[in-house]
């Protein structure tokens, strides 16, 4: 296999099928994400968006098809999953911070334990990251002492501390109240502006339109329609897409 070069898609998904028992959740999904691109996946609940994004870092397995991250097949049984996950950051809907660790410790844990990096260097980087997500002064707070939006930003910093090549965001604002949604979205927007490759599953249409390079609409396990955000939101072709957009916009 030829080695991956940056002019090839960083994430390449081809004809992916995934079932839970008899229920087929993904029915042949294909999409490409280039380095530095921000793509949004939108669609009704149960359309397979989260399942798809979880397949990219092998939290879910797939039945058939192929997912390449930097040219490596994610669902090759011989693949080192841990090495893959070091390259692919993930942020969850429910933050999933380590509740017994402070914000700073949450960010520092993986670089120290997984990457075996020097503690002092990791701490300096973690403090910078927390500053970057606008949480200066909250370093020693436990997750239980932070608001949802603050916890989610710690989760983003925790993921960034591993210096991933691509970040996955799984409905990261769905559990937040409207006021704190904005602070998380601003953080992601900063990241995108810095050139981070991002794949987002989101219900924030305004945000998707503003920040993404490409929007995918999924329904019932297939990609119904996709396009640049201006086209997609302004000129949707498929009746299902239009019905969905009419409901949410």
């Amino acid at each position, binding site marked *: 296999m030829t080695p991956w070069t940056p002019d090839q898609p960083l994430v390449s998904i081809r004809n992916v099928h995934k079932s839970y028992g008899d229920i087929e959740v993904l029915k042949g999904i294909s999409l490409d994400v280039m380095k530095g691109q921000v793509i949004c996946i939108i669609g009704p609940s149960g359309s397979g968006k989260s399942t798809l994004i979880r397949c990219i*870092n092998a939290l879910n397995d797939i039945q058939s098809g192929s997912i390449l991250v930097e040219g490596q097949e994610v669902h090759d049984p011989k693949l080192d999953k841990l090495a893959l*996950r070091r390259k692919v950051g993930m942020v969850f809907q429910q933050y*999933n911070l*380590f509740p017994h660790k402070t914000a700073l410790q949450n960010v520092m844990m993986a670089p120290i334990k*997984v990457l075996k990096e020097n503690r002092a260097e990791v701490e300096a980087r973690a403090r910078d990251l927390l500053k970057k997500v606008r949480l200066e002064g909250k370093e020693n707070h436990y*997750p239980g*002492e932070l608001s949802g939006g603050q916890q989610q930003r710690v989760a983003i910093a925790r993921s960034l501390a591993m210096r991933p090549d691509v970040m996955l965001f799984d409905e990261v604002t769905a559990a937040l109240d409207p006021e704190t949604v904005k602070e998380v979205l601003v953080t992601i927007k900063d990241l995108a502006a810095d050139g981070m490759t991002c794949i987002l599953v989101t219900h924030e249409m305004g945000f998707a339109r503003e920040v993404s390079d490409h929007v995918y609409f999924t329904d019932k396990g297939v990609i119904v329609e996709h396009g640049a955000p201006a086209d997609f939101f302004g000129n949707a072709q498929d009746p299902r897409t239009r019905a969905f957009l009419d409901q949410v916009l």
Partner: protein
Amino acid sequence: MIDTIQDFFRDLAASAPHWNFVWIYDDHQMNRVLTGLWMTIKLSVFCLIFSVIIGIVGAWAQGAKSSLLRAAVAGYVQFFRNTPPLLQLLFFYFALGQFTPSYSPDGWLEVPLISSVGWAIISLSFFAGAFNIEIFRAGIEAVPHSTREAAESLGMTRLQTYTNVVLPLALRISLPSLSANLINLVKTTNQAYAIAVPELLYQSVAIWNDYPSAQNPTMLLLLVAYLGLVGILSLGMGSWEKKLRIPGYGA
């Protein structure tokens, strides 16, 4: 000072025949009480440590891939949880004790490799360990799957996820039940009396067999001693619980 106290109890024994605090003024009896207490403390500490180790290892093995290992742990838990600890002590000492090798330090005496104290520690550790496995399992299962997933998605191995995330949280969840079981364990150590382990109850009975007039005071001593031992343990566990409390968690 000590002499006055001893004289007081000597006089008390003379005037009140049921209240002979013999172990206060008789050095030999005092020695029995102290060696008995020390044995009870040793039994408790060893059993505590071993039972917690059994609990942690067993709870880990319950999540193992090998179904044989899982079945073995389940069988062990069922056996030790569902039979009386006194019976287990007798079984270990009399039944298994027959098959353990012995050695002869002087060419005359045959000494079994595992003493009655050894059997008591083994038997009681296995007894309490069975409960500890269930307690830790409940704690581990109460850690949300999503928290584990977050650790895995950061590239942590199963062992790293366990030691850094799952176990610290599971321990906090398990601690109240663990305290209850360890308190029970300390109290159960006096069943080693049945296989002649010279612990506090054994020595107390020996004292009141020699001095029937000392039965009331010695029983009182037993109660106070166990109250004290268990009190220290539960205070210790309580302050540990408080120390591990996470600000803002579970509130």
